[in-house]
């Protein structure tokens, strides 16, 4: 084995996948922007992504907010800055953990089910059947999912932010014995619009990435049940990785425009 040849092959393979995903994204987005749109299909996806993810996202962000209060208390107590706990909780939740936790949970839940559903449709020729019935699969399957992902994740993240901050409040007030009014004042005093806004921008991007990966891997799955299984795994893993990469990228953009 020539290591250079291997490296070259890996690089070429990577570029091929990147090219295919770019092309897929381009076609998918162009279908999102052109009529006809299918409102019931978009609605159903929104329900699935937004409403049915609420329990998972709610629980995970509740505990994240709670643990955040405890951990930051431990840290700040070392230099007598316990008062900053509320501020740290709200900034961490809105800027970072709300979108990331919600994103990762939805990636596991929705990315997987999209890839499995579309993948099954691919291997059972249902996608071919759509084309023969004068229905573009991008318009019918991909566009509603992208639109729903892009719009629902920010809403979910607003909920995650509120619940996370509430979790921090519970721990702060009932365990760390902060004064409730003071804790709330500390929460909102230093919160700026950009904190929440940057989190929502991230959420939109994450929602798009999750749907895109679910659709892409499902659409290109081949080889029966095993292929669908592989597509599901790939959808979740690639969505999670891309999500964290974009998380850093978007954070840096907002950091630069501080």
């Amino acid at each position, binding site marked *: 084995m020539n290591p250079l040849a291997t490296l070259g092959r890996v690089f070429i393979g990577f570029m091929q996948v990147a090219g295919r995903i770019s092309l897929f994204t381009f076609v998918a987005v162009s279908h999102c922007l052109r009529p006809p749109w299918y409102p019931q299909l978009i609605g159903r996806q929104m329900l699935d992504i937004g409403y049915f993810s609420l329990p998972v996202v709610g629980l995970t962000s509740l505990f994240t907010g709670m643990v955040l209060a405890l951990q930051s208390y431990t840290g700040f107590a070392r230099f007598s800055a316990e008062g900053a706990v509320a501020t740290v909780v709200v900034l961490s939740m809105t800027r970072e953990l709300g979108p990331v936790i919600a994103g990762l949970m939805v990636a596991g839940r929705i990315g997987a089910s999209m890839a499995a559903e579309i993948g099954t449709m691919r291997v059972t020729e249902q996608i*071919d*059947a759509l*084309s023969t*019935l004068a229905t573009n699969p991008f318009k019918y399957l991909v566009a509603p999912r992208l639109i729903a992902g892009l719009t629902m994740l920010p809403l979910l993240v607003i909920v995650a932010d509120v619940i996370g901050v509430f979790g921090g409040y519970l721990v702060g007030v009932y365990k760390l014995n902060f004064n409730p009014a003071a804790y709330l004042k500390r929460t909102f005093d230093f919160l700026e619009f950009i904190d929440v806004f940057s989190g929502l921008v991230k959420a939109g991007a994450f929602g798009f990435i999750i749907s895109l990966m679910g659709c892409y891997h499902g659409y290109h799955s081949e080889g029966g049940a095993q292929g669908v299984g592989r597509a599901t795994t790939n959808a979740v893993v690639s969505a999670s990785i891309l999500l964290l990469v974009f998380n850093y990228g978007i954070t840096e953009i907002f950091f630069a425009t501080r």
Partner: protein
Amino acid sequence: MKHHPKISIRGLYKAFGPKVVLDGLDLDVGVAESMVVIGGSGTGKSVLLKCVLGLLEPESGSIKIDGVEVLGMPTSEREKINRKFGMLFQGAALFDSLAVWENVAFGLIRAQGVDRIAAKRIAIENLASVGLRPEVGELSPAELSGGMKKRVALARAVATKPEIIFFDEPTTGLDPIMSDVIDKLIVKCVHELGATALSITHDMGSARKIAHRVAMLHMGKIIWQGPVAGIDRSGNPYVDQFINGRAEGPIQMQVRA
């Protein structure tokens, strides 16, 4: 005006990587003719249909529908041409997120803009014509047996009254009686619509019932074609071996791939 065949395929070449599946295939199907393509498993019969439908992109060749070249056509025009087609897929390919009647009405609602109530009525009529009761329309495809799925798929394929219908192994995996039912339904539907039919099968009994003409696909080419009546006197050793189902003969099954 010149008379075109409904479908005219010339020099069709399709490969998957190094594997050549169709290797310069020529085939004409006349207007309102029922052509059956026979050939062993994995010879590329489904690939042929998918190339004509635009689901697969052949490397080279020409496919004309009503005399119009469809290869290399822009997507929007291609979608218009596709409205002429109906297709019965090998595995039925029913949409399992939709009820049976919605499957049948799918093309009517999406392609022809029929409203849901009228489309449902037509769908129920179509189900009746393949021998299924209206109640079946409310079921989900997962609740149907194999034979019922094929019948629903048949009803869906003909619901939009297509000019050209493709049947991909319509009777494979069905018992002989159900096969006969499906064959008869195909003959009836094609006759009533006056449609051009291109079917694929390796079931000779079925081919004899539905075909006007038969073509045999082997090694990526049509190696013989002729009227169904002449199939027993084709004088072609490949056809003889195939229709008599003998392991010995010019066709060497690749037991070890």
